């Protein structure tokens, strides 16, 4: 199959290939980049600030795992034309789906709260009050999705991806020791200190999250890509997965260079805004501003996608009308859920004295608990000939996927336990 695609790929002139790729690209790159949301940036910043370059190596296996998992969703979306929650409902019945979707809803809600917190923090770094920035962001997000079409929204999202370059720029601005980074990147190391392990699990958990599978599959299914053009769609996924980790790489480098010191363990980072604030005196205002702008962009971007993705997958599994191109009366559940998620996520941030860190922790725990179920369900579905026809997993794919699923499940479980015990 792969060989046939490659043959076809070679026969076409390069400019047609490029045009085709640009028409197909989107779902993979967007999904992967939303992954670098407020939570992701916080985790990567903390990883750099607390442990320097020591965790850089972990990005290599994470990239491989991410490509593997997202490629499966991508394939399922193209072959079946259905979203993941729809397939899960049809394969595993209503009970499993209902409880799984409830958990997905909860963890996504936690993530949405985190995104609006990111917006608030980033805006405050620029001197804008959260009472202005958060309602504005909520309105912008709601309006864009409800009034836009899929095509126009996708274009906006693709532009948002480009702004991640700010992290690359900051990475070069702080003039790190590249030789040292190169060495750390290729030598895996594990320190058996609980802080290090939790951070490692945190990096894995924030990079591979359940909503990504639901979102990518749904948007691929929506795009109606022909299976004949699968090579392009696969490239979209691979490029996305690599780019998300490239950004993570640079965030870790920036914080590892500026904020980490081997003597006293570095600056303590609890939020991404902490990182930007700490950067200013050490690396200059420009670096801090670029970092803060990156955070604002990432949070806004993720805040637009997460509520949409959540409403989409929940409604799909229960058979309620979906779609931003339908009117409210045609898809009441969809719009209600979508609007409530935004209102709740943004509203919570405006309340005084909310236990933000605890909400994040809880969300991360549920995240960790849901992921293994999603991955196992995916593996069962993608190996079902009745559903996937000739496009089931190859043996190698299965072995790798099972190994990664086992490893990620174990790590997620450890994270959940550790988080609960505080």
């Amino acid at each position, binding site marked *: 199959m792969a060989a046939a695609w490659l043959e076809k790929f070679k026969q076409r002139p390069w400019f047609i290939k490029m045009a085709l790729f640009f028409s197909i690209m989107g779902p993979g790159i967007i999904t992967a980049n939303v992954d670098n949301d407020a939570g992701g940036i916080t985790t990567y910043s903390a990883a750099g600030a607390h442990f320097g370059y020591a965790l850089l190596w972990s990005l290599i296996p994470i990239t491989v795992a991410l490509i593997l998992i997202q490629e499966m969703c991508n394939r399922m979306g193209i*072959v079946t034309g259905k979203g993941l929650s729809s397939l899960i409902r049809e394969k595993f019945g209503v009970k499993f789906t209902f409880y799984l979707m409830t958990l997905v809803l909860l963890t996504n809600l936690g993530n949405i709260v985190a995104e609006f917190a990111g917006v608030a923090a980033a805006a405050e770094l620029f001197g804008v009050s959260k009472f202005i920035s958060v309602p504005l962001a909520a309105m912008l997000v709601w309006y864009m999705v409800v009034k836009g079409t*899929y*095509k126009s929204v996708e274009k906006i999202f693709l532009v948002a991806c480009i702004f991640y370059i700010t992290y690359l720029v900051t990475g070069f601005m702080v003039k790190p020791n590249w030789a040292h980074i190169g060495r750390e990147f290729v030598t895996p190391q594990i320190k058996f200190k609980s802080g290090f392990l939790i951070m490692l699990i945190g990096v894995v958990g924030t990079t591979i999250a359940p909503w990504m599978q639901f979102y990518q599959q749904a948007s691929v299914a929506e795009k109606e890509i022909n299976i004949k053009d699968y090579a392009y769609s696969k490239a979209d996924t691979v490029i996305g997965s690599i780019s998300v980790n490239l950004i993570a790489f640079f965030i870790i480098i920036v914080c590892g260079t500026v904020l980490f010191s081997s003597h006293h363990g570095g600056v303590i980072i609890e939020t991404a805004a902490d990182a930007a604030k700490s950067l200013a005196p050490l690396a200059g205002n420009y670096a801090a501003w670029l970092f803060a702008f990156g955070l604002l962009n990432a949070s806004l971007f993720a805040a637009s996608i997460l509520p949409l993705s959540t409403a989409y997958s929940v409604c799909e599994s229960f*058979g309620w009308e979906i779609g931003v191109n339908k009117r409210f009366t045609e898809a009441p559940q969809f719009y209600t859920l979508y609007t409530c998620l935004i209102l709740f996520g943004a509203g919570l941030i405006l309340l005084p004295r909310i236990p933000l860190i605890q909400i994040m922790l809880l969300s991360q725990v549920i995240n960790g608990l849901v992921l293994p179920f999603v991955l196992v369900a995916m593996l069962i579905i993608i190996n079902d000939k009745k559903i996937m026809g000739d496009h089931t997993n190859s043996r190698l794919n299965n072995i790798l996927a099972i190994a990664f699923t086992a490893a990620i499940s174990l790590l997620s479980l450890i994270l959940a336990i550790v988080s609960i015990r505080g």
Partner: protein
Amino acid sequence: MSFSFLFFSQLIHKKVIERESGRTLGYISDVIADVTKIYPNITGLIISRHWFDPGQFLPIRCIEIPETKGPVLADNAQTEMGPKASLAKHEILVRETFLDKQIVDISGSRLVRVNDLHLLIEKANIWIVHMDVGFSGLLRRLGWLALYQKIVHWLVDYDLEDKFIQWKFVQPLADSNSAGTLALKISYSKLSNMHPADLADILEDLGTDERETAFKALDISTAAQTIEKLPMKTSLQLLDTLSNDILAKILDELPMDEAVDLLSELSRKKMNSVFRALPKKKVIDLKELLKHSKNTAGSLMNTEFITIKFNILAGQALDKIRTEHEKAESIYYIYVLSEQNSLVGVVSLRQLIIAQPDQPVADIMATKVIKIGVDTHIEKIGQLFLKYNFHMLPVVDSHHKIKGIISVRDALEAFSPDIKDEVEGGA
């Protein structure tokens, strides 16, 4: 009591016990129904011992469904129960086809997911009469219905209404691998009762495989009308799966300009095999249209229109419209040709109807005809439409021979291709 109702969720997964021995036979893992009757009639159960057990068949005549909770009782299981070879042409697996799956609600023209099935027990027969697609069905499956009703009743004195769809409005969907695909195809005729635009919306929301199966089950004329309403990408994907014969038949039904649009996107090989299956005359016309470069009048025009000679009478012209109207895209403007077949005038349907039947066409026609050359660029065409405010303009070659007509709609579509996809639901 002659009849009673039962929900499918109260039957499926129930334990089955042999009446004589009290031995557990297994649990009901699926139910087989005959779809040729007015309602699907349950003919037997599949009884499995565990999750991976494909199960054994037990005819419905052997079992008795208790009115209270408790296991299903079976008689003569020893002799009657046995492996089921394969489904007959008119049989379906009920759980696999309906439960948790999407169906088309014909009366509401939408896709819904089945939460439960409503069964009617009448003497020895069990009929499937309704699909439960409502919230109460969902709660019943989750086992929370009673609790929910109690709370709601206590709070607001309001009972949750059942949301049922009658069987006659239910169109099950199947993919090429599902059991009983044959039986489902028989009943696909229900889809043809829907408006092609609604049908297109539903097809678009379907999974790839279900869409293909449903589309292939449509009759040619419905299929062609539906293709017209689908976004280009989806149309091409569907047409790609058809045999050349069927593809040719559908293209033959389509208006010329739509057919050309689709043809020009096909591979050369596919296009040639479609040409072999089409009538000769049609192929010549299509090839002529395909020759014109994109964004010129020649590639947008429709070649199905009505012309009359300048020397006939208004009554004769109306007769000609009556016999030829079917193949023409629009009959509002009738183009008038000279002895040498060049375009000399245009007359509207309104003028023809108002005129006396014995009035010569030459007397009532407008002689200053606004026309478009076959090589005119789309931009210029748009300007002409704006300037003269017609909704249809003729296309002529360099010898003033009429080659086709272009409607405002065609021009608009060519001007801004995205419009079409957005209107037709390309979200």
